């Protein structure tokens, strides 16, 4: 446990020793902030117009649901931006060790591969949670000036973290395959994107393939979280993929020893 923690601590610190973490946080905050502003403006404009319209026809003013019309969409946006930003977090985790030859240190000290993989995965996840903190301030604005329901916001964040966990585990695996960080980032992004779009094929297929493709789609599982529903099948989906990614990473770094 102490060794896993040592890896976690070192990796997490390393993000901040290079400009990478700051660049990622800045870009993520900028883009999510901009999109939040746009969504909010659109929402305010729409509700204003609808209210005016209702007044004209002497009807009761319509009720606007912040959760339904703003927060839900915003979580979708956050998930989409995460798709692009997470591979840049995971790319260096193993590729850099390979390039610098520090894997030789890890392989010859009494630390297990599982401890290394777990430590690195947790560091990636922790940085992702740090990334999400500024968006929580945006959400807080809604609570200050409006009264959205709290639980869907909470479930949305749980969903985001689970989604991030899946992308990080898969990105980690890609990073074990190469010593080139750019390739690790592109590979991680491609694999994540594949999970994102795989459900689209379901529309044009039938029979047994359709439910399989639908199940594999990472988006389908995310929608419920954004609506405030925590369904155990969706949680299971993310956990399975996370464990799968970590398992592949583990096998991948173990296999380096056996490659002849």
């Amino acid at each position, binding site marked *: 446990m102490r060794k896993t923690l040592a890896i976690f601590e070192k990796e997490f610190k*390393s993000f901040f020793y290079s400009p990478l973490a700051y660049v990622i946080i800045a870009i993520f905050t900028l883009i999510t902030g901009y999109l939040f502003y746009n969504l909010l403006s659109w929402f305010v404009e729409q509700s204003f117009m609808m209210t005016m319209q209702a007044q004209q026809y002497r009807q009761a003013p319509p009720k606007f649901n912040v959760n339904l019309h703003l927060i839900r969409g915003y979580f979708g946006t956050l998930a989409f931006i995460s798709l692009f930003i997470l591979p840049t977090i995971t790319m260096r985790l193993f590729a850099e060790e390979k390039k610098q*030859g*520090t894997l*030789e*240190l890890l392989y010859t000290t009494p*630390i297990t591969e599982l401890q290394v993989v777990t430590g690195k995965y947790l560091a990636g996840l922790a940085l992702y949670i740090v990334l999400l903190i500024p968006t929580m301030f945006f959400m807080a604005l809604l609570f200050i000036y409006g009264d959205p329901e709290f639980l869907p916001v909470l479930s949305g964040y749980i969903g985001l973290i689970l989604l991030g966990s899946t992308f990080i585990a898969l990105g980690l695996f890609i990073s074990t395959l190469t010593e080139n960080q750019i390739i690790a980032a592109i590979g991680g992004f491609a694999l994540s994107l594949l999970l994102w779009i795989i459900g689209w094929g379901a529309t044009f297929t039938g029979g047994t393939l359709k439910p399989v493709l639908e199940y594999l789609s990472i988006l389908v599982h995310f929608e419920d979280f954004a609506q405030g529903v925590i369904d155990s099948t969706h949680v299971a989906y993310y956990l399975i993929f996370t464990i799968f990614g970590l398992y592949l990473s583990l096998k991948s770094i173990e296999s380096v020893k056996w490659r002849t």
Partner: protein
Amino acid sequence: MIEVNDLTKYYGQKRAISNVSFKVKKGEILGMLGPNAAGKTTAMRILTCYMPPTAGSATVGGYDIFDQSMQVRRITGYLPENPPLYTELTVKDYLMFVAKIKGVEKDKTKAEIDTVIEKASIGEVRNRVIGKLSKGFKQRVGLAQCLLNNPQVVILDEPTVGLDPKQIIEIRELIKNLKGDHTVILSSHILPEVEQTCERVVIISEGEVVAEDTPENLTARMKGGERVLLELEGDEKQVKEVFRTFPDVTAVKVNKTAGGLLKVEVESKKDLRKDYAQALIVKKIGLLEMQSDKVTLEDIFLHLTTKEEAA
């Protein structure tokens, strides 16, 4: 302390080492000598559990490198050829991290780090970022890492490569100081280094052990006779005749220098320097210089490794 039995490693079709066997006693410094790509690093990587051998076995401190890999790693310190450093960390943070993954107890960590910092004399750079350090300091930080947790076995892969002469001497001194407390294996392709620091030498060529002995014994074994180098002034024919009069002389080589002097190399069964001098003076040949040429480890090394190539 270390026992290596018939280690063989293939990389695909290519054989890196084959049937390598040797033993290292507790507290001894063993030098592993061989040209580049002879299989030194491969042997070391197997001993440090970085990768398993294709065939054969080895034990370190009584633990099998394959079945008890974690125990072996616990008692072994390893410095690979390129020191495994996290360049973005400071020296102190880096050693702290290594101490943790090596499982140094929490309350002993600080003292342990101070000890290795002192041993490797890197106190002045302890708060600096590793990436900004010179090659010599990086190597020492690597060495400090390797000595953390006071390992019984220390394995150093080309520890002095890329250092300046002063740094080389310092690192060698450091290694010599490890003797007794630690069992050391050290690889090198530089002969004087091994001659100076090691008690026993294993010479590896093309993946096979071609010789194993103390540096002195190896030198003695090669020393079939005395070799003397002379610089003379005189007639080439006459010079040759002088040396032929000695029955113990086995070979005479004469080269003319640009200045008309003669460079002579004489090999004999015993030391005949006095007799040479007398004989040359009697014949009125100018004796300008005479020196005994000792057979060095270098000669043995070249002899053993080139013989291998010819075979």
